Every structure is written in structure tokens, then in C-alpha cells.
């Protein structure tokens, strides 16, 4: 019996081994899946029809997209659109693989930066260059969605990654407007401190938000606008003077920040900002809508720190495209997808989206109904820099930059923090 068992086991293992080897030899290993081939998007047609899937991660926008789809159906009765919503992290991790098949995501968004670049490299975008909808975006914004001079996507939502100030508290501190030079900025923080509030709230324990401040801190300090591209390429170092100066200025801001700043999350800081305990929240304009939802009634404005003298400033703030809209090159419903993106790109529809989400849009000619959007509208035409932090395409390099600012606020010297960060950059870029 035991002999029989051992023979059976041996046969079984031999068969299993052979099957495993054969499977491995024939399995879909690296590179077995072909890259998508970039195509020119279908032309816009009023006769477009079919069922298309709009894949995205923006669950918070589901209702407004549903509302817009109701209007869309009146213009395009033969198109049915389904929203396929994945959590943000899942979308980041798996969207590309899913989109390449063309089975889902006839139209889709991507984050600016690493995700857009990866999708562009994989060829999942159809070329939108021949479509009129591109003309609805200012050229400098539309450029964000170009790769190798091909218009792959359009920047739909625009945010300002600048600190936001409670104007009532500013007024109470006797400051009429946000200063446009570094000394003036620190004097403003001193005046705010005198009123008993936290002058400058920074979510130093929140990796998703703490890095927004670096955008404005480097916008006038760096030797060029593509400073972080150059850091990623090894052409500039974090140990260079411009970044040491930036870190030194973080240290100057530290006394104005809240207790336990390096452990503070954005959500809790937001609650304190909404209650009027914190005068400035150093994240971005996307904080305004949740602050309103948390009960904030006071007027707000942007308060970007200009880190140089007023006459040396090249930029007064920073903007960014939160996401870009594209059409899938592998889609069999491209005409429907093009119709949907075109519809969203019309000012009257973009206006509905903007007011419902309380965020600006990249589309030109939009009339904003939301009071905060109106208040901040002038920043759309101000001298703002496209958020440079997203030039850092490697997450570890981005984290190294972010964590160097945290270290300085915690008390590490700028030199040491910069050296530690640069060591990680060197390791990552080889």
C-alpha cells in the first residue's frame, strides 16, 4: 500500500512539474501584452450612438455627472453612458491594465504627472488634436495634456495649490491684504499670532497634503520653472542653495504652525480652520468646499507665500490641473466617448460641473455661480506657475522632498535634511 502511494505521489509530482513548466513557458509573462496603439480620435458626430463607459475614481462627482448625463441624453439620445467608479488607489493601480483592453473606460481621467505620463507611454490615449473641443481650453492649460506635441487629454478641473486664508481673521489682525514679499508675509503671521489664533496651519502628518506647500515655496526660489524635473534628472540637487533657502524658510514658518504639526492630518486641520482657530490652511483651494461644509461662513482668499522681495517675484501663486480627460484609443465606442468629452468641454456644462463641485474648470468662458469660485476667479488669469511638485515622477523622490520639509519643521537643520533627501534622490535615479 505504501509503495503504491509513493508511486502515485511520484507520478503526480512528475505530472505537476511538467504541467507547471509548460504553463510557465507559455504564460503571459512580462511584455506579452502589446502596448496600445495610439489612434486619432473619432470625429465629433451628432449621430453618435452606442453604449460607452466613463471610468473614473471621483465618487464625489457621481451625482453631478449623473445630472449632466441627463442633459447629455437630450442631445445624444442614442448614446448611453455608464459611470464605472473605482476608489482612487485602485484606479491608480489597475486602471491602465483595464483600459488597455478597451472593454472599459471609453472615456477616462488621469492625474497630471506620473499617471498621465504612464498612460501616454502605454498609448491608451486617442489623439484629440483635430477636435474643436480642444479650442475650449486656454492653450497654456491645454499644453498639460500634450505629449510629444500630440493633444492626448484636456485639463478639466483646475485648483490652486496655494494656502487659503480666513479674511475675517486677517482683518482682525489689522492686515488689509496678503503681502507679496517674504518679510511682509512673516509680519502678517506675527500679526495673526497676536490675535491668539494659529497663524499658519500645515498638515505635516498627511502625506497626501503636506507637499502642496512646497509648490509655492519654490516657485520664486528655484533657478528655473522645471526645477523638479531637473532634480529628477540629476541636473539640480536638493543640496543647492535654492532648496536650502526654501528649507530655511520652512524653519521660519515653523513657529507659526500649530502644536504637533508633524502629526496633523488635513481633515482635522480643516475642522479647526472652519471653526476660526486657524487663520491660514496650507493646502489648496480644494479645502474651501469642505470648510464650507464644516460650517465656515467667513470670506476666504488665497495666501501664497512669496519667498522673495516683491520686485523679484516671478509668480504670485500656483495652479494645477487635478485631472485630465481623455478618450481610449482601444475603445470601440470612440464616437460616443468623444461626444461625452466634447459635451463636458462646453462652457455651460462645465459651469454646472464647477458649481456643483465648487472647483474651477479649465474650460474658457465659464460663468461661475459659486461665491468662492467667483472670489478666486481672478487667480485664473494671474501669474501663477503650474504646480512644480508634480514634475517629480518618482514617488520616493517626491516623498524625499516632502519629508525634508517635515524634518526641518521638526528641528533638523536644512543642510542635514537636504543631504538626507538628496541621498534618496541619488539612490532612486541611479
Amino acid at each position, binding site marked *: 500500500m505504501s509503495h503504491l502511494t509513493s*508511486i*502515485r505521489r511520484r*507520478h*503526480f509530482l512528475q*505530472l*505537476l512539474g511538467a*504541467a*507547471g513548466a509548460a*504553463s*510557465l513557458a507559455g*504564460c503571459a*509573462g*512580462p*511584455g506579452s*501584452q*502589446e*502596448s496600445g496603439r495610439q489612434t486619432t480620435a473619432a470625429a465629433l458626430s451628432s449621430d453618435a450612438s452606442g453604449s460607452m463607459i466613463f471610468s473614473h475614481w471621483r465618487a464625489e462627482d457621481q451625482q453631478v455627472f449623473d445630472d449632466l448625463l441627463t442633459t447629455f441624453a437630450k442631445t445624444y439620445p442614442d448614446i448611453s453612458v455608464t459611470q464605472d467608479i473605482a476608489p482612487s*488607489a485602485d484606479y*491608480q*493601480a489597475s486602471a*491602465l491594465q483595464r483600459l488597455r483592453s478597451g472593454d472599459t473606460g471609453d472615456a477616462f481621467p488621469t492625474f497630471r504627472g*506620473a499617471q498621465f505620463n*504612464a498612460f501616454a*507611454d*502605454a498609448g491608451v490615449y486617442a489623439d484629440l488634436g483635430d477636435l474643436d473641443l480642444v479650442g475650449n481650453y486656454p492653450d497654456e492649460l491645454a499644453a498639460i495634456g500634450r505629449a510629444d506635441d500630440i493633444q492626448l487629454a484636456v485639463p478639466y478641473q483646475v485648483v490652486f495649490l496655494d494656502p487659503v486664508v480666513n479674511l475675517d481673521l486677517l482683518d482682525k489682525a489689522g492686515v488689509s491684504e496678503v503681502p507679496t514679499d517674504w518679510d511682509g508675509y512673516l509680519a502678517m503671521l506675527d500679526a495673526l499670532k497676536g490675535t491668539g489664533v494659529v497663524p499658519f496651519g500645515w498638515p*505635516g*502628518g*498627511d*502625506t*497626501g497634503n503636506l507637499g502642496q506647500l512646497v509648490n509655492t515655496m519654490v516657485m520664486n526660489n528655484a533657478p528655473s520653472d522645471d526645477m523638479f524635473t531637473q532634480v529628477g534628472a540629476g541636473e539640480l540637487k536638493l543640496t543647492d542653495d535654492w532648496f536650502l533657502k526654501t528649507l530655511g524658510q520652512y524653519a521660519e514658518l515653523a513657529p507659526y504652525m*500649530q*502644536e*504637533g*504639526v*508633524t*502629526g*496633523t*492630518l488635513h*481633515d*482635522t*486641520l480643516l*475642522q*479647526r480652520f472652519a471653526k476660526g482657530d486657524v487663520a491660514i490652511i496650507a493646502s489648496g483651494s480644494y479645502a474651501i468646499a469642505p470648510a464650507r461644509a464644516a460650517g465656515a461662513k467667513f470670506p476666504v482668499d488665497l495666501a501664497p507665500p512669496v519667498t522673495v522681495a516683491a520686485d523679484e517675484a516671478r509668480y504670485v501663486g500656483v495652479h494645477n490641473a487635478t485631472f485630465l480627460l481623455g478618450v481610449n484609443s482601444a475603445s470601440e465606442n470612440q464616437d460616443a466617448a468623444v461626444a461625452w468629452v466634447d459635451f463636458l468641454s462646453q462652457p455651460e456644462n462645465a459651469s454646472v460641473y464647477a458649481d456643483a463641485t465648487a472647483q474651477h474648470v479649465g474650460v474658457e468662458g465659464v460663468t461661475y455661480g459659486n461665491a468662492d469660485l467667483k472670489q478666486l476667479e481672478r487667480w485664473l488669469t494671474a501669474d501663477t506657475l503650474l504646480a512644480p511638485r508634480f514634475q517629480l515622477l*518618482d*514617488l*520616493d523622490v517626491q*516623498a524625499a522632498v516632502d*519629508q525634508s520639509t*517635515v524634518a526641518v519643521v*521638526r528641528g533638523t537643520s536644512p543642510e542635514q535634511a537636504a543631504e538626507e533627501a538628496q*541621498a*534618496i534622490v541619488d*539612490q532612486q535615479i541611479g
Partner: protein
Amino acid sequence: MSRPPRSASSWRAGLRRDLPYLLFVVPAVALYGYFFALPVLQSFQYATTDWDGVSATYETVGLDNLTRVLGDDSLFTNALTNNLWFLLTVVVVQTLMSLLLAVLLVRNTRPSTFLRALFFVPAILSSVSVAFVWSFMYEPGDGLLNQGWSAIGLDSMRSSYLGEPGMAIVYVGLVQAWAHIGQLMIIFIAGLQQIPAELYEAAELDGAGTWTRFRHITWPLIAPATTIVVSYTTIQSFKAFDLILGLSGNPPSASLDILSTRIYTTYSDSEFGYAAAQSIIFMIIIAAVTVMQRRALRLSQQEV
């Protein structure tokens, strides 16, 4: 003595005889092979490439990825160090606390049953919910812990918790332990209830005190339960991915980065081949730590 070599004809005859029996296990083996063995084998294949997870082309780099993990990657080393601290915190706190609760609540009385249910509640929460709850507990400004310290006049104990680079991973370890103590307490209670009461009665007659009875009866006889608890806790500590991301965001700060989050970040950075190499090392580390722990436990329970 080695077996004599078998001829090809006898091998074929054996195969003919065994084949009908082997067919019974084919469905199970096929499923296991396709959904488990094959992906694991593929990860070895990926680990020898520089594939970015997307491109149609890749280069074979041999063992370069593995040598990079073991030699030059300070981020991986940092994650490993954090993971070991996390493991130590969770294993010690979780095992001791769950054992203590099990000893206190082993009797099947109504209050014990109620308290067991109460301690078990965190185990049914998702890690994301646990992270959400504790992010507010650890909040330096108005968080419950700091408010508590201030309320009892111990302002010097106020901390930024997850913002303390040296201690952040320990604080996360305590959250992990909090969430799973009740679950492991149940395993210990099941183990304790298997111990014959006569042993305790005999020891009591011999004059053994509480500690002596625990050391010489309880501890050796709950060895199977302890092994399960420690092994489970170890593996769980290496895989505490969602709790870390929930408390820290993605990618986590350097002080909270553990091996699973490190691999995920590498994957997100489009270094699929390198992430596969990290996964292989990760698998070996878990296996090694688990084996070492089981041996240490066996020794400690044989000695008493």
C-alpha cells in the same frame, strides 16, 4: 540503500495503473496551480526583468534586482527595520494582552461572555475604519489622547504620535494590537478550556501558587494556541498594509513605511520587476521569522 533504477516500461505501466486515481485530483490541482502556483512562479520570472508593468518590452537583468534589494536600497532596509519594530510591538502586546484577557475571562459566566464580546468588537471593524478612528485619537491638536493627558494635568505627555519619527511605528503597532486582541483572546480561551481541571487541583494540593500553576501547567499546555497566535500575528504584522496606508496616506512617511507598503510604492513607481524581487525577499523574511519564532516557542515551552 538506494532504490534500483526503474525501466521506462515499468514507469509507463505504473502510470497507466495510477492515472485513473490521479484524475480525481486534477480539478483541485488545476485551480491551485492556475490561481496560486503560477502567479508565484511568474513573480520569480518578473524578478529577473526590468519590466515596468506596462511596456511590451523588457530586459532580463538576472539577479540584479535581488542584489539591489539586499545591498543598495536604503528605503527597503528602512522598511524592514520599521517592520521588525512593528512586529515586535504587535507580537508582544497582542500575545500578552490576549493571553491575560483569556485567563481572566476563561470561565463561561455571563459577565465573561459579555466582556469577551466587547473585546472582540474591534476585530470585526475593517482596517480602514480602525485607521479612521485612531487617526482622530492620535490627532495632536484636539485628539482624544492629548485631551486626556491635559485633563489629568499631564501636559508633558502630549505628543504628535504619528509625527514622532522614532515612535510612530510603535504607535501604529498598538493600534494593530488593539484591533486584534479580542480575536486572539478567543483562540487562547479555546486552548485554556482544553486543559484538564484535575491538573490545577493536583497542583493546588501540592501547594503550587498562581504563578507556578501558570508557568508549569497553563503555559506548556497552551503551546498549540500560542503557536497559532504568534504565527498569525507575525504574518499579520508583515501584511498590515491597509492600516498603515489608512493612518499615513500613500506613500507612507519614512517612519511608517513597512515592507508591504514599500513593495506597493515600488510597484506604483512602475518598477514591476524590482517590486517582484522585493516580494520574494519579503516572502523569505516572513518564512524565516515564522520558523525562528516557532522554534523559540517550542524551546520555551519544553524548558518549563
